[in-house]
């Protein structure tokens, strides 16, 4: 399967998302609803995307945008799968059962953003200490130990 066939396949599978799917230079971006993320990830893995490159998140202020980078060694293609979750109920299905590499990546996202991955086997902090309060990469994170940079620097 080449990247054009992949595009056709994905557009037939997710017709409402097809305008958001773009393929340039062998990379693509797929925006899915958070309830369908695990389903889409499972599809992609069955299509031959056998490598999970990274899992990360972006705090847009209103909600969190999760970014999954999946790659196929056979097709030499990679896709960014993105989804959005609300801030107050930040929760998403874990893809640890599809790619075991997601284990520590999801723990890091949980550590920094507080997004709960449902079905993760060992969801606890990975970088910060276990007794840390708050999630530092959230835009509204407050910590009295932080010294803010003054304007004149």
């Amino acid at each position, binding site marked *: 399967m080449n990247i054009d066939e992949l595009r056709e396949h994905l557009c037939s599978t997710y017709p409402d998302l097809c305008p958001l799917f773009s393929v340039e230079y062998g990379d693509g971006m797929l925006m899915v609803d958070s309830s369908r993320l695990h389903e889409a990830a499972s599809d992609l893995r069955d299509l031959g995307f056998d490598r999970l490159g990274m899992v990360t998140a972006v705090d847009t202020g209103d909600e969190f945008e999760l970014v999954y980078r999946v790659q196929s060694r056979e097709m030499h293609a990679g896709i960014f799968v993105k989804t959005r979750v609300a801030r107050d109920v930040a929760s998403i299905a874990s893809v640890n059962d599809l790619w075991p590499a997601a284990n520590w990546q999801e723990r890091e996202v949980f550590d920094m953003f507080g997004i709960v991955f449902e079905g993760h086997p060992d969801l606890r902090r990975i*970088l*910060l*200490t276990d007794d840390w309060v708050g999630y*530092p990469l959230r835009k509204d*994170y407050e*910590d009295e*130990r*932080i*010294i*803010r*940079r003054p304007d004149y*620097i």
Partner: protein
Amino acid sequence: MAFVDDLGAALDKTPGGGIILTSLDAVMDWSRGKSLWMMPMGTACCAMELIAASFSRFDFDRHGSIPRPDPRHCDVMVVAGTITRKMAPAVKRLYEQMPDPKWVIAMGNCAVSGGIFYYDTYSVIRGVDEFLPVDVYISGCPPRPEALQDAILRLREQVATDSIVPGRDRQLNTILPTPGSPRKGDSAAADGDDS
């Protein structure tokens, strides 16, 4: 060094013991200053300079300062790198495992003050002196091995003023030439340095 401590404390109280104590201090400080074994606490890029210092170009062996993998062998802890809040308990614990007398060199801006991580950071300790008694600070990002060399030599001068009796200061250059001073180029120099 419990025996030496007891001996020093006893001599300090004995009439006339100060003369012997001064001689003993001179010998002890001379030997301590000449063998400052390093605990290489390298946590970031400054560790590259710290490693370079041990090899042939800079060759800290000639100062008697060699890195040891075990804190129980070491006299001076060289904190080279950024210390995060998660790392700080480990650093403190390694420091506590070092036998007395012990010294600390803060190498590089991160270990001195937090460096570029001073502002807007949630995880970095602003200077290792928040929890360790630092004797010598080296600025730089990272400092050259020559700067570390200078720190070792200055630490020697500080070691030379210590006495085995707590609270008692020793006059410099009393009996044995003090390690580290006078510096090279001083024509009245006694021997005792690295020449």
